[in-house]
């Protein structure tokens, strides 16, 4: 009994710790709950980059991070997934479409010179001068016709390259390609040595928006490899808030039904199971906050489901305990046997759930991963709460001796001693009994 009391105080200590964590630490909520955009980018191979290497991915990640940060939104996340994918999460984005355009563009600026092809047609060849040689870009207007233009300022190397190039091309055309498209091809009048240039929008000139976007992209820097958006998920803030309040409401109702049912059916042990269930929820939520697990809608579903598992363990135990009591065992023995004999069922069935969770976690998409993680944590904690916590409370409350109040267990007095079991079970055999 002394050990039992010590364990009881340890449980109380754990509960207090959990309450502290739950109240002090913030819950990390997924974008489907707070609202925001989640994009999956996939690096694309090109003729110059036939295979995506980890180095490519690292530099792509940096470039994307730069761009995301340039948007000025707090708590953005950029992470790698697999060999060639990046997940970008932007909470509270006001215009998801703009963010999308911004991330996917490669911002490849190239200066090309004219060439006579063998078949007599004209074409363009790269000169080695690219967006990498820029210091900065800005939007300005052409002093002659008032059209929007993009002003470029080269860095030291760029200035030299640009100077040499314009010297060579006096009287000829030089083409400016942006993302593979010919933007303009002015005729060079004289060498430009000051390291400054302007891109006009060709015949019709730039729209302001167009020029601004180009400038933003140029300043953010080119992506080392082109990337394509292959998945998008944007949730408006109202839907997220609704989902939270709905899930909370549903969880409360479901939980209250379960608790009432347990008390009605199992009486005093039911009440103990309910207390254990509250402790269980506290522990699980503390773990969610400590790891931290990002709670998504699917994650909440996984948690609510694990409540089912936790209750199941208690039901298994109480059913066995009741059986042992019907046979006429003393309280202490009946409770112990109830726990021991239910243990194999609880252990084996929870193991199969955990196996499923592990496979889901490894193979699933991020939605499925969230679900698997919360369900697995819940299942593991439920083994502790259902076995250690409930058992301890049962022993302390009922003590030893014969059952004096059968109604506490929802049993009738005449049921006691009315049944007998198959055999005297050896505890150690029953625990991990394997069929031969």
């Amino acid at each position, binding site marked *: 009994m002394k050990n039992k009391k010590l364990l009881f105080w340890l449980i109380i200590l754990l509960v207090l710790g959990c309450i502290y964590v739950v109240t002090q630490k913030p819950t990390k909520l997924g974008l489907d709950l707070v609202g925001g955009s989640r994009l999956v980018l*996939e690096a694309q191979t090109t003729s110059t980059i036939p295979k995506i290497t980890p180095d490519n991915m690292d530099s792509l990640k940096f470039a994307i991070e730069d761009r995301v940060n340039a948007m000025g939104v707090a708590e953005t996340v950029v992470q790698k997934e697999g060999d060639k994918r990046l997940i970008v999460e932007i909470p509270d984005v006001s215009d998801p479409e703009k963010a999308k355009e911004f991330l996917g563009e490669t911002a490849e600026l190239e200066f090309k010179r004219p060439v006579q092809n063998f078949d007599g047609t004209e074409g363009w060849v790269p000169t080695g001068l690219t967006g990498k040689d820029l210091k900065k870009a800005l939007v300005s207007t052409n002093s002659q016709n008032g059209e929007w233009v993009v002003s470029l300022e080269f860095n030291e190397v760029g200035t030299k390259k640009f100077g040499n190039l314009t010297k060579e091309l006096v009287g000829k055309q030089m083409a400016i390609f942006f993302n593979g498209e010919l933007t303009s091809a002015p005729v060079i009048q004289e060498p430009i040595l000051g390291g400054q240039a302007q891109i006009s929008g060709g015949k019709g000139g730039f729209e302001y928006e167009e020029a601004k976007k180009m400038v933003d992209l140029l300043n953010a820097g080119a992506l080392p490899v082109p990337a394509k958006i292959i998945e998008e998920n944007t949730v408006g803030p109202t839907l997220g808030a609704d989902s939270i309040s709905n899930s909370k409401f549903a*969880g409360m109702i479901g939980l209250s039904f379960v608790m009432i049912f347990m008390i009605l059916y199992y009486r005093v042990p039911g009440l103990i199971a309910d207390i254990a269930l509250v402790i269980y929820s506290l522990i699980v939520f503390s773990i969610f906050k400590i790891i931290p697990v990002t709670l998504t809608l699917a994650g909440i579903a996984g948690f609510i489901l694990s409540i089912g598992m936790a209750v199941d363990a208690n039901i298994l135990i109480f*059913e066995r305990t009741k059986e042992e009591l019907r046979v006429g065992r003393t309280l202490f023995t009946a409770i112990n046997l109830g726990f021991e004999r239910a243990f194999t069922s609880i252990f084996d069935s929870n193991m199969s759930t955990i196996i499923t969770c592990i496979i889901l976690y490894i193979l699933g998409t991020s939605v499925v991963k969230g679900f698997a993680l919360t369900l697995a944590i819940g299942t593991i904690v439920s083994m502790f709460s259902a076995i250690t916590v409930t058992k301890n409370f049962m022993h302390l409350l009922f003590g030893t001796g014969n059952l004096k109040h059968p109604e506490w267990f929802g049993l009738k007095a005449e049921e006691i001693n009315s049944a007998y079991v198959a055999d005297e079970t050896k505890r150690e055999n029953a625990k991990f009994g394997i069929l031969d």
Partner: protein
Amino acid sequence: MFSNAKKIIDIVKYRWIFLVISILLIVPSIGAMGYLTVKTGAPLLVGIDFTGGTIIQYSVDTKLSNVDIANVREKLSAEGIENPVIQILTTTSNKEGKSKSTEIISIKTAFDGDKNSNKTNTVTNTITSIYPEAKLVQVSSVGPTLGKELMKNSIIAVLLAIVGICAYLSLRFHFEYAMFAIFTLVHDVLFVLGVFAFLGIFYGVHVDALFISAVLTVLGFSVHDTIVVYDRIRENLKFASKSATFDEVVDASVNQTLTRSINTSLTTLFTLLALYFFGGVTTKDFVLAMILGISVGTYSSIFVASVLLVFYNHVKESKKVKA
């Protein structure tokens, strides 16, 4: 031996009835999936998560009718959005005890992979021109290659989970027990898939990535339930095999675990029903799949898993006699 134990169901005696019930559950399910496979190339109507595509949703305050849908469709087509699938969803939100319902227009189009076309903006402009108060609620867009990959991964995940569970059960029980547990599990999953095939045929319900988690959970639960019954059979066999026949042991074991099976399902169903009626609209199908799966899983753990063992044992015994 077990004469004094409470006996509620005579499981072995009526085993043929349970076999017929299971066949009645499964055959139409397979039929519905076959019908859809012939018609669409997949056993279920699969959503954009698997096929690729874009779904854009807006919330509006006005109540919408079929006329409104037709109007929206016409306007979208005029803007160059081809064959949009338009649905109206109603969500209720509970804030401080007050429930408020909102209509959501859901528009599904082909995947918008071209960043210059900006389909979402076109759709948004069209919708706000009809309903100025409309708010963009959700955009989900999946590329076609990603969809195929998800489909492949999902099938691998389900198969791996089955193999994993089978290995674990062979280790803890007999290989035969593992096989029957898997058989029961397939029974349950087929039923859930079948119901969704019917929902697809009659109500156009599509399954998404979350549905895979639901199926996997059903899988876990089904085995969970079966294990509890088999565990009891294992225990009873160990201590009673000399004085009771196998049929008696199975009968007694099922009856001993019956209250537990029903109570567990009830408590889990409480939470799931609460989620179904009060939870978010996005998880409704997910929860429905689990409600179906847990109900059929409880049924099969009581009536199918045990009956299979009895049939198997009869075959084994008769072979022994012949030998």
